[in-house]
């Protein structure tokens, strides 16, 4: 039984030594898919002849301009005669595992033992020392492999450094949202909003503050509120308040608007109101004297109209003030333009 270096290969033009029939079993056929079995006595040149350009190599990735090699032991990543780990019996690579770099070496003596083919050498974490290690392990090896190993090692250390730096910077954390939970919370929020009755709460709070006098003397109402409180206890306060009001007419320093209830205001239900401009205040002060008398009666008569924000009525009233100059109670035509 003689093993011939050349083997019967499908489709390849090779010399075939036809032995006797009993030796057929000894012919080892190289599979078309090279990764499955490698014949002990196939020369690398033969292998390259097959997988390089002619036949199929399962690690090869072809693109328009170049061929890449997906084999994890490949040194450069390209599909070349000198860089193919299958077609070179003496080969070395650098690979990285969890931040540690290793030098893998394959020699022809171990070609028969696929399990022990690659020799793994741990490289030091110090860059220069590791380079020296590579040199001493690959002494007498082809220049190409030595050079490429060092290049690959450099690249790997660089990306490891970058990874370590990135960890220290800001890291974006993606938090998964549960759809059910989001839906439930949305519904709860809607219900809470309805239960809150925000407008009412705010108005109540503001009126509370007014009653407690946090606004000081800005508004004239506190007098009325105070009176209302007194009224329930003691009915003589009404006369007192009249006296007080007349005194305070002259004390309007900040020039706040007098929000005096007027006749046509009660049915209005507009919610818009305008911020009064400065000019109107002078007019208001002039009109105060006339309207105060009306106001007093009206204010006592009108109960709280609830929470209907008759803000528009305030605007109307202000507008009415503007128009009162001309002694007409006209509809505020200018309201729409001012809005």
């Amino acid at each position, binding site marked *: 039984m003689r093993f011939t270096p050349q083997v019967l290969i499908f489709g390849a033009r090779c010399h075939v030594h036809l032995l006797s029939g009993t030796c057929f079993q000894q012919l080892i056929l190289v599979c078309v898919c090279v990764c499955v079995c490698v014949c002990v006595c196939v020369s690398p040149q033969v292998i390259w002849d097959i997988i390089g350009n002619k036949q199929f190599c399962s690690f090869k990735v072809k693109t328009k301009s170049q061929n890449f090699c997906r084999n994890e032991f490949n040194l450069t990543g390209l599909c070349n005669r000198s860089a193919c780990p299958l077609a070179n019996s003496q080969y070395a690579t650098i690979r990285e595992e969890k931040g540690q770099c290793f030098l893998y070496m394959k020699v022809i003596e171990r070609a028969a033992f696929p399990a022990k083919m690659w020799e793994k050498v741990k490289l030091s974490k110090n860059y220069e020392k590791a380079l020296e290690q590579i040199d001493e392990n690959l002494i007498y090896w082809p220049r190409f492999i030595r050079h490429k190993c060092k290049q690959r090692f450099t690249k790997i250390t660089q990306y490891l450094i970058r990874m370590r730096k990135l960890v220290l910077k800001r890291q974006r954390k993606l938090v998964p949202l549960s759809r059910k939970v989001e839906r439930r919370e949305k519904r709860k929020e809607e219900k809470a909003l309805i239960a809150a009755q925000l407008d009412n709460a705010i108005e109540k709070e503001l009126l509370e503050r007014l009653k407690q006098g946090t606004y000081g003397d800005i508004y004239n109402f506190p007098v*009325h509120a105070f009176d209302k409180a007194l009224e329930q206890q003691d009915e003589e306060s009404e006369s007192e308040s009249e006296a007080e009001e007349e005194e305070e007419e002259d004390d309007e320093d900040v020039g706040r608007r007098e929000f005096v209830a007027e006749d046509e205001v009660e049915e209005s239900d507009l919610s818009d109101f305008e911020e009064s401009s400065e000019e109107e205040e002078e007019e208001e002060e002039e009109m105060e004297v006339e309207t105060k008398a009306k106001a007093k009666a009206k*204010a006592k008569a*009108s109960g709280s109209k609830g929470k209907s924000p008759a803000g528009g009525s305030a605007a109307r009233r202000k507008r009415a003030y503007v128009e009162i100059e001309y002694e007409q109670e006209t509809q505020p035509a200018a309201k729409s333009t001012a809005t």
Partner: protein
Amino acid sequence: MYTGREHGNRRNTTEAPKNSQGAAFPPTFSLSEVKNKQRRHLMFMKLKQEKRKQKMQLKKKRRKEREALGDKAPPKEVPKTIENQRVYDETTVDPEDEEVAFDEGTDEFSAYFNRLTNPKVLITTSDRPRGRTVRFCEQLATVIPDAHVYYRRGLALKRIIPQCVARGFTYLMVINEDRKVPNGMVLCHLPDGPTAHFKVSSVRLRKEMKRRGKDPTMHSPEVILNNFSTRLGHTIGRLFAALFPHDPQFVGRQVATFHNQRDFVFFRFHRYIFKNEKKVGIQELGPRFTLKLRSLQKGTFDSKFGEYEWVLKRHEMDACRRKFQL
């Protein structure tokens, strides 16, 4: 041929009710045992009508009684609401509690409440904010006096914070964005105050508001804090209060409201006007949004190593519908 089926039929017809009103049902009968869908449906409808009728009768009777009694009628019962049924929280603050008062006198906000510092707020966003978030930040800056908006540009918060402290800011507000809408807020009280992380929802910008007024002026608004009852609520309330300057300018007639309802804090910004001492009109300006507290951390922003005073744990805290934290 006498098959079993006939027997079965006969059994059904004898046992099944004659479908008259006073039918003889076995006492353990339930509607779901009727196999025929239409018939079952009809029976159920009838049952419901019966129940409704009884209820109406009861109501009428009660109303008649009430009217008959007139003034002496017993007071109407208060309906149960979630707020009524709220599980009593042992951290609810008693208004006269001295321990709480002492704590609040010495916590991180005491500097503000003792008028030693004026609030100065830095508003920023997460990386690469979209238009909505940017506009929201700008509007927030108009609502909060002395607020400055800065672009984030990929800076790390831990590096921003010492710079802010050096420049005298008292608050850092980071609006987080997801899918082009703001959805989170980190509010960090600066010298070394607590950091609160909120979930932001229902953001309405100014131009989406109906019937709104003109833009807010530069006057300091008043602040209303509603329903912050527990210790945690108190802390959060003070956190919000310290955003605004101490003395509101009543000239501006603006009010910012933080209303807590069932652990949702609703923020509104209004302009008010007193028509008389019983009526006030309010007009909404400014953005509105809802906040839900997710975590409160002692110290400035440090999500990994910070000490968390309170974290929203859904399984514990959301399990009971009547239990609220704020």
